[in-house]
């Protein structure tokens, strides 16, 4: 019986609550009258099991607050807009202007969000066309008091920002009027920037779902969704014949196969430029890692080497004076053929042969316990094709950076590499050895003073890339227990995709796209990982490490395979439950103390060569000849 009642609240009722903002007041009143008798029968514990906003809707049905019910139901879907008002009493947060047990929304943690994630409610009050422009009045509500005393505001349309000046209105909140020309495809947002530190928060603009669309030459301003939000949709423009033909032609010619063909011709006819170096880190994902350390060392010395960086997407992390080339473009193909020096951390396109005369410095991107090369799952399958391709790709390397003797012992045979090896530490780790910070991580990620930073960096699972399944710690439990003292900075692996849910954002900061992990390592107080190679870099700092390995047997035996028995070499506790993790984090200094001996052994194994001068020594040797 309770299960059926719970299902009624979770499923059946939601079918009616979701589209409630579309209904008129009479319909909603009748609906509430029909549902109310059944809700009155339900015991309190059934309400405890559904989400806080569902509970608020039930309370409003029971209290016959029809207009409030429509507003609350509008927050169930779409942009999940915050309420117009909220009350905070004794550490708890309540929906609306009154305090009642059924209106408790503390669990959503909306009142504790950092400023850049904080929630404001923007409602369209009026929307009229004014020639080819649109004039809009927006009411802004700040239910959780997120806005500081000094701020500036803007309307964001795609990449365009139009400054606005919201005026305080009589009934709390702000009113702003803005005139804009709709263009392209976007969902307009209103943003507030805090003057003191430049952090910005934006939110979509919600509107009455019955708003008449405004059609203009540049595009249509309309609403979408049950809990309707404003959006601009472009007018379908007839593409000219010439553009269509050109597009088709480019698509036909610019195939990867054609580029490879052209490349093979280019490397035969073009001479190499000895001083042109092509840099790439993490398959073009950013300006980081060992290639960056080497590049900066070259710049610092002022060597006469012209460097070009390959970028896949996300150019924001690159300094403005760096020459960029898009990975996979025609210009990239040309640069590959022309450059006399290749530097990268993963592998330039595997089927591109290295031209005669080019020198290739492979920095690699991590060492550790995970199986690698021919032992890794992607090359273990029953085909020879990928293995032959990787063998040919490895044969291109002229020099390899080996962080440690252990790395050489494992990595060289499992990749079949027998060429030159630099054994002088990792360029990437120089910054860690020297504790060189360039960025205020605490400020950038809005970590409140007094809280410690736990860097959580799990590696990916080969059978579940881009699934978010590598985050195996129960973050909700962790937040409940430790949110007073800690902030989790979550750094997922580049092939993983995960975004923390809103009710955890007060505790978890998403740093997956943070440009440089070294900054996070230096700013953090402890590391939580599973099998990631980050453990070997982190050991340089001497700070505590914790290992959450609840799927160790699976990972070790069937999924990935490992070279070392982590529980017996780990420089910190190996845990399998979040409860244990909470206990360990509460007594971290003492726990860390007991692992001192193993920590030292671990550093000896992986970090004995890290002296902070790896980049300098490698540049002297590898780039010395090119510079002369």
């Amino acid at each position, binding site marked *: 019986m309770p299960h059926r009642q719970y299902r009624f609240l979770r499923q059946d009722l939601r079918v009616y609550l979701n589209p409630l903002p579309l209904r008129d007041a009479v319909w909603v009143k009748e609906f509430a009258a029909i549902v109310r008798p059944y809700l009155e029968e339900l015991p309190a514990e059934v309400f405890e099991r559904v989400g806080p906003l569902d509970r608020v809707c039930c309370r409003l049905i029971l209290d016959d607050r029809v207009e409030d019910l429509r507003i609350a139901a509008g927050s169930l879907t779409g942009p999940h807009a915050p309420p117009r008002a909220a009350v905070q009493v004794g550490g708890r947060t309540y929906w609306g202007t009154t305090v009642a047990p059924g209106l408790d929304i503390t669990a959503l943690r909306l009142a504790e969000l950092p400023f850049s994630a904080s929630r404001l409610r923007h409602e369209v009050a009026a929307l009229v066309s004014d020639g080819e422009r649109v004039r809009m009045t927006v009411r802004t509500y700040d239910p959780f008091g997120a806005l500081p005393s000094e701020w500036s505001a803007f309307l964001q349309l795609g990449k365009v920002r139009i400054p606005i000046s919201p005026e305080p209105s009589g009934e709390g909140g702000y009113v702003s009027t803005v005139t804009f020309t709709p263009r392209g495809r976007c969902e307009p947002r209103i943003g507030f920037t805090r003057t003191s530190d430049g952090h910005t928060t934006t939110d979509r603009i919600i509107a009455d779902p019955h708003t008449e669309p405004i059609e203009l030459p540049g595009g249509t301003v309309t609403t979408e969704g049950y809990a309707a939000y404003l959006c601009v949709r472009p007018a379908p423009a007839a593409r000219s014949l010439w553009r269509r033909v050109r597009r088709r032609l480019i698509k036909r010619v610019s195939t990867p196969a054609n580029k490879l063909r052209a490349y093979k011709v280019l490397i035969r006819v073009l001479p190499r430029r000895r001083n042109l170096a092509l840099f790439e880190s993490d398959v073009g994902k950013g300006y980081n890692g060992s290639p960056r350390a080497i590049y900066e060392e070259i710049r610092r010395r002022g060597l006469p080497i012209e460097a070009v960086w390959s970028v896949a997407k996300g150019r924001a992390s690159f300094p403005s004076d760096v020459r960029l080339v898009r990975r996979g473009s025609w210009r990239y193909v040309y640069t590959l053929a022309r450059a006399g020096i290749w530097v990268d951390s993963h592998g330039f396109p595997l089927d591109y042969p290295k031209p005669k005369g080019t020198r290739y410095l492979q920095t690699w991107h991590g060492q550790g316990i995970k199986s690698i090369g021919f032992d890794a799952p992607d*090359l273990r399958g029953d085909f020879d094709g990928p293995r032959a391709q990787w063998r040919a790709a490895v044969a291109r390397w002229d020099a390899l950076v080996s962080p440690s003797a252990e790395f050489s012992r494992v990595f060289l045979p499992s990749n079949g590499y027998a060429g030159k090896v630099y054994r002088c530490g990792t360029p990437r780790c120089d910054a860690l050895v020297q504790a060189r910070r360039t960025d205020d991580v605490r400020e950038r990620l809005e970590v409140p003073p007094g809280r410690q930073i736990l860097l959580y960096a799990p590696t990916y699972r080969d*059978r579940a890339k881009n699934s978010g399944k590598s985050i195996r710690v129960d973050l909700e439990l962790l937040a409940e227990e430790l949110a007073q003292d800690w902030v989790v900075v979550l750094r997922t692996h580049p092939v993983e995709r995960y975004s923390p849910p809103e009710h955890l954002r007060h505790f978890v900061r998403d740093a997956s796209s943070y440009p440089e992990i070294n900054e996070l390592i230096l700013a953090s107080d402890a590391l939580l990982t599973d099998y990631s190679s980050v453990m070997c870099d982190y050991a340089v700092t001497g700070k505590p490490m914790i290992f959450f390995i609840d799927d160790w047997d699976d990972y070790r035996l069937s999924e990935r395979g490992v070279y070392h028995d982590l529980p017996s070499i780990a420089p910190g506790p190996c845990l399998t439950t979040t409860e244990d993790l909470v206990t360990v984090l509460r007594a971290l200094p003492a726990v860390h103390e007991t692992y001192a001996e193993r920590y030292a052994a671990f550093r000896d194994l992986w970090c004995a060569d890290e002296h902070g001068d790896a980049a300098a020594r490698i540049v002297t040797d590898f780039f010395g000849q090119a510079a002369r």
Partner: protein
Amino acid sequence: MTVVFTCLDADTLGGIQQVTHTLAQGLAERGHEVHVIGLQRAATPFRYVDRPLYHHHVISNRPVTGGLARRRADRRLKALLGEVGPGYAVLTSPSVVARTARLLPGSLRPIGQYHGSYDHARDCWHLASIRRHYPELDQAVFLSEDDARLFSEHALLPNACALPNPLAAWPGAMSVLESPRVLGVGRLEGVKRFDRLITAFARSGAPEPWELHLVGSGAELPRLRAHARREGVDGRVVFRGAVPAAAMSAEYLAASVVGLTSEYEGLPVVLLEAAAHGVPAVAFDVSGGVRSTGAVLVPPGDVDAFAVELGRLVDDEEERRRVGADARARAESFVLDHVLDKWEALFAHVER
């Protein structure tokens, strides 16, 4: 009735090819018109059947690269398929299905085979290809009921069924299980993971006269030799190189235990042949096919558990006889005649 088997490469040494030629000969002996088509010529051809009763064709002399060569090859294949009478086309792998299914004339009913396990398909491009191309075929044939179920769930196949690989011959004699020899059979390639078998043998505590014999050749040989040296059993691991098919029976008769430590296996012929000779086997539990052979099963990748099971069989002759006899009883359902009956039933089912 005509049956056309199409392989990417019909004459290389390998499991798919052995099964295909065995089935082709068997069906031809039952009076069907059988064709075996190789889309490309093998680099080192292997002769499976001495006096084939079926027709044999090769489409291209080398692997086709580029659009023009592909189109020419497709034209030749289409012409050939148009000439053979109405019947069934058995396409033996995902790449063959992707390339050939659209070239078949209406008179040939397409049947897609997959010779790997579900795990293997999931970990490479095969699963996506099967999901894309197999639902349109008249039948999709997998190696075991477990695999067929997993594929119908995860590749959304309405037409999946299970049909095991056949045993080419049924031996009259059984191994006496008294010689101190553990046998491993397979190409010496990464996927077979003989390094694990060597480690397990070293850790099993098998006493001195016992040896591990590895039959097969491949690129991993130097690495495996070095591995055996590291494990301290280099004197007791014997690399036998490739052995002709006719001599394999003697190998099984001279062995007391067979070990299989591959990363992936579909329905390994090694386990079937070992079972037919009454030789007990230890294997990682990597597929429904392996489970159906009656081998002693060990959790995938757990080398220590493998060593324990291997040691148990090495120590206990009674247990070897029991497991071996049990496996031989199970292997009877893989006898060629039974499997051919199942194929004919499948053809009849497709016809209906």
